[in-house]
């Protein structure tokens, strides 16, 4: 009884359900924006890296290394609390989106680049020998294979990064965790946190299932 009272208090659920549902949309919105930006920019950077321009590649590698090395929370705090003093204030949502997409871009770039380097040289030669330009060979022949090789690690990275939207609670983004923890302090009940856990599962369990489908759909024997 005590357990149900603490974690599944009906009155608290009724009171905070609308807030939690609204917060779910914020989380979904941030996650989708992060995935689209990160995956597209990551693929773009990997393609640019394939052009083999020394100074450009140096910048890409530095970006990818820094973004993968720094804890995202550090970047979030710097952007949110530091940038206004140099005259650039960004909304909390924009900060979360910028930081998480940059982190995902860095990981996606490394994953796609790894895939590109694993495409056998013969694939490039077959492409070039049949009259495709270097760019066409990259886009139609090498990149699709790199993407397929990268899907399993990419899916893991996407799930890990999108869950970091919870860091928005630190700077007041009205996403699930932040709404739930303020509800918890107002109500003095742990129930909103249970609701948050369920809300995350409602979002991410289908995402995990979809990821299995994507992995199956795009896998093939070499």
């Amino acid at each position, binding site marked *: 009884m005590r357990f149900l009272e603490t974690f599944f208090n009906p009155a608290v659920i009724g009171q905070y359900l609308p807030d939690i549902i609204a917060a779910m949309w914020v989380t979904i919105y941030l996650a989708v924006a992060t995935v689209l930006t990160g995956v597209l920019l990551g693929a773009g950077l990997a393609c640019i890296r394939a052009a083999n321009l020394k100074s450009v590649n140096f910048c890409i590698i530095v970006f990818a290394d820094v973004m993968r090395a720094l804890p995202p929370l550090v970047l979030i705090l710097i952007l949110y609390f530091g940038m206004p003093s140099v005259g650039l204030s960004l909304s909390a949502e924009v900060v979360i989106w910028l930081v998480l997409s940059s982190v995902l871009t860095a990981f996606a770039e490394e994953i796609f680049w790894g895939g590109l380097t694993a495409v056998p040289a013969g694939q490039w030669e077959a492409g070039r*020998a049949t009259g495709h330009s270097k760019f066409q060979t990259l886009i139609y022949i090498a990149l699709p294979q790199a993407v397929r090789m990268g899907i399993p690690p990419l899916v893991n990275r996407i799930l890990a990064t999108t869950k970091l939207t919870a860091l928005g609670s630190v700077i007041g983004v009205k996403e699930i965790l932040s709404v739930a923890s303020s509800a918890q302090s107002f109500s003095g009940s742990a129930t909103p946190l249970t609701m948050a856990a369920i809300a995350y599962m409602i979002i991410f369990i289908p995402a995990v299932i979809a990821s299995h489908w994507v992995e199956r759909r795009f896998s093939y024997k070499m």
Partner: protein
Amino acid sequence: MSQHRAMLEIHALEKRFGQTEVLKNIDLKVREGELVFVIGPSGSGKSTMLRCCNRLEEPTSGAIMIDGARITDIPRRDLDKMRLKVGMVFQGFHLYPHMTVLKNVMLAQVKALGRSKAEAEARALDMLDQVGLKHKADARPSELSGGQQQRVAIARAVALDPKVMLFDEPTSALDPELVGSVLNVMKDLRQKGMTMLVVSHEMAFAREAADRVVFMDGGYVVEQGPPEEVFGNPKSERLKAFLSRVSGTAAA
């Protein structure tokens, strides 16, 4: 054959990789509709010579002419167009694993040659029919045997209407029972008048289908002539040694 013009001409071709001189002085002519066979020990530069003919490798010096056009000094931006005229078949097939067989044969027709999708598809199906694999159009390369994959690779190259076809050991990666189907496709091509330069060790096929056999060793063309001559009456010691080595292994 001698009245036919040269379709592929190699003049004083040299190729160095750093300090190693791989092709020392190659002269070779393939006339229109001719099938020229290239044999020689491993490492003698056969692949490198073929790869210079579509500039997958950059020749160090010398000239190569395709259908009268000098391809050795065209600028890089015109390379893609030139390569449409030179089909190449690799030992390892190199089909695109993420596409169906049909899409494999269509891709360059659409993207490199600029044919419409419908036209490319019709041509691809026709080519697949010619190599006996129309029923595999919707299969993935991984679902085909090596011999079938190589026939698709030939269809993919020929669909672009090249002037010359280069074959680099097209049957060396195949199980013996699959070699015949690929050679039959090549014989068919020859009958249709395709000009072909073939690196291979299928000596029986050379005797049957080649107009000329070229023996390369150490970066030179050492000897060439009709198959009966080259196989029946080899002049140089190096060719004699080579022939006795391969006939020994071929018999085994």
